[in-house]
Structure formats: structure tokens, C-alpha cells
């Protein structure tokens, strides 16, 4: 039964051209696909294999390649196989198409990604600020944003080095007896 489902899913996936399928384990498939074909893949999987559940969209910043990697995690209650669809989008100008019309929860994930990475999704219902409503700096999850530098520029530190701590350090540290 399980095998037949996997074969059936494999046939569905092969209907799309220029797709790279990597079966990580029995219940996990990694799919690499071009950004043009990704909405079609989600649509096809939703209609033909019961992939109704978009768990999340994650984003990875690849500054050396000047690309964002988007990973769409989708789950089917019929095949019980998780598909992670990977696609790479150019960082400049940083636009991609929304999949809100296929999976409604995508609206939240896309809004979050726009806030944290600055990748804009065209067609998403709301691209307003989400969590960082009072943040005016650059998107903080970009690798180019140096958090530590920002912290040292913005905040001061409190020194705390009492005698008892110095004694413990002099003994070589460890647990206080």
C-alpha cells in the first residue's frame, strides 16, 4: 500500500519538467524546482495528491550567490509524505509571486519573510509590518546585517566581577561547593 502511494506520487511529480527529486527517506521528499514552476507544482500536488497543508515557508539568505532560497513544506494526509519544495530567487530586485491563492496560510509566512528578509511577494494580501512594528533598520535576518555590531553601537554593558567570582576563577572555575 505504502509503496503504491509512493509510486503514484512519483508519477505526479514527474509530470512537471525541469524538476529534481531526491527521496530523503520513506516519508520525506526533497524537490528542487525553478521559481517559475513552483506555483504549478503546489497546485498539482494539491489537486492530485491531497497536499492541502502548507506547514511553513522558510527562507535562507545566500549572499555569495546573491539569492534567496525558499522552502515550501507541504504535507498530505493521504500519502503521509512531507514534500519540501526548494526554489531559488534572485535577491535583486527581490520579488517573487505569492501562493496565497493556492494555500491561504501562505499570507502570514510571506508577510514574515518580507519583514525578516525583505523579499516582496506580489499578490499577497497584506505586506504590512507584522512583528517588528517598531523596527526601522534593515531586515534583521539578512546575513549582511551585523547584529553584534548593532548591539555594541546601541547598548551599554554592565560590568559585574565581584570578589567571590574572582576567587572561583582563580581556583580554575567550576561548581561552587
Amino acid at each position: 500500500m505504502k509503496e503504491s502511494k509512493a509510486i503514484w506520487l512519483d508519477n505526479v511529480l514527474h509530470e512537471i519538467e525541469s524538476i529534481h527529486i531526491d527521496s530523503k527517506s520513506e516519508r520525506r521528499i526533497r524537490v528542487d524546482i525553478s521559481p517559475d514552476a513552483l506555483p504549478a507544482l503546489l497546485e498539482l500536488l494539491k489537486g492530485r495528491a491531497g497536499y492541502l497543508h502548507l506547514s511553513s515557508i522558510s527562507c535562507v539568505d545566500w549572499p555569495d550567490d546573491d539569492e534567496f532560497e525558499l522552502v515550501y513544506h507541504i504535507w498530505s494526509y493521504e500519502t503521509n509524505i512531507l514534500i519540501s519544495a526548494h526554489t531559488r530567487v534572485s535577491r535583486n530586485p527581490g520579488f517573487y509571486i505569492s501562493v496565497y491563492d493556492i494555500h491561504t496560510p501562505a499570507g502570514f509566512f510571506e508577510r514574515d519573510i518580507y519583514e525578516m528578509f525583505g523579499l516582496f511577494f506580489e499578490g499577497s494580501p497584506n505586506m504590512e509590518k507584522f512583528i517588528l512594528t517598531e523596527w526601522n533598520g534593515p531586515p534583521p535576518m539578512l546575513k549582511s546585517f551585523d547584529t553584534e555590531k548593532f548591539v555594541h553601537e546601541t547598548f551599554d554593558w554592565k560590568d559585574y566581577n565581584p570578589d567571590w567570582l574572582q576567587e572561583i576563577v582563580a581556583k580554575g572555575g567550576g561548581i561552587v561547593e
Partner: protein
Amino acid sequence: MTEKNELPVIRPAAGDACQSESRSGLFQHAIDSFVEFCRSRSMFILHYCTGCGAIELPPAMTSRFDMERLGISPMVTPRQADILLITGYVSIKTLKRIILTYEQMQGPKYVIGICSCTVNGGMYWQSYATAKQLNEYLPVDMYIAGCMPRPEAVLEGLMQLRDKIESGAATSWEDYFKRYDHYLGKQQHLFGKDWHTPTDVIEEARHYNLLGEGTLGENTAVLEKYLRHHQELDLTRVALEPAKTNLPDR
């Protein structure tokens, strides 16, 4: 029409601080120390639990460690609370709300920072969104360090604060009024120059007789444009003129 001056005008009552200056003698001293004793034995906590240290408070409050036997119990509103208990991790967004809450509390008020995060950012020291030292933005009476401190430590800290209040040494809330310019400057550094709260702290400082050298300064000068001065209630208009409504005449 009656003259406006014929009717009494409601004026704010003189602050406690004004009265205590005129007190003298052994009898008054006895009353004051009795008041301090009572104050230190009925402390109401407003716990601002956005950090993970909040999980140590339920055992401290309930039957296992039983905070209430010391006269310490939770309170629901800032206006009725004595202690603002901040349990760890303060993000910049949260800090704004903490300052709003703190300014709503009535003096004398005390702030306790629990966990390492309020001391120096703790494990979030590298985070762009976390405020590091709480006492830069508010006067903190006591830090209870640890990640997280056990309920025993929380109780120990509260008992130390109790002794501090009883001896009259817990006066850091006055520092907020006396050095408001310093605190506001730090807040503006984080939130931007247009930061202001609905509470008129300067007017309150004047009311409590706590206007110090550092109350007014270049940072508080920015507040001028947001300031809405207290207006006396004009009873003549209230008494004699019919209430105006926006409803159309029929």
C-alpha cells in the same frame, strides 16, 4: 450670569511629601515608622511576565513557597500595585509597555528585575531586539540574578526589599522624578526622539515635591510639543450651561 469666582474650583490636593516636611517630633516619627512597617508588610506585585522567569512565580506564590504568608500577593492593575516585577527578557517593544505601566503606578513604587536578561541581556546579549540593562530606562530597586532564579531566590529578594522599605532605604522611585531627563534620554536613544508617554512626569514630580536638578533638561525640552497641561475644571460652565451634544435639533 453668576461670576465665575463665586463657585469653588477643584484644586489638586497637596502631595504626601509636602505634609511630611511639616512633621516633627517623636510621635510623628513613630507614626512614620509604623507606616513604613505596614507598607513593607503588604506588597502587591504587578508581574510583567514576558520572560521565561515567570515560570518560577507560580510555585513562589502558591502553597509550596507561599509568598502570601509574607504579605506579598499578586495584583491585577498597575494603579493598585507597589512592585513591578519584570521576569526576564525585555524586548524593545516590551520595554515601551513596561515604561507606560511603570508611569501609571502610584508612588512609592518599586521595580524588581528577575533573571540575567534584565541585568545584561542574558542569553540574548547578541540580539538586536532585546534591551540590555533595565536600570538604564527605569530605576530598579533590586535584581535577582539567575537563569532562572529559584523561588527561594525570588522570596529572598522580596524579603530584602521588604527590609529595605522598612528601613526607608528603598527610594529609587524618587530617582525617576529627580533624574527624569537622564532616563528619558536613554529611552529616546532607543525609541527615537518622538517618544513620549501620556503621563506628565514633570508635573507629577512637581506634585510630589521631587523636582530635582536632573528633572528638566535638553531631553525633556523635546516633550514640550506633546505636553497638554492640566486644566482646572470650570464648574460654572458645568453647572449653568446645558450639556452640548452633537445631535441635530429636532
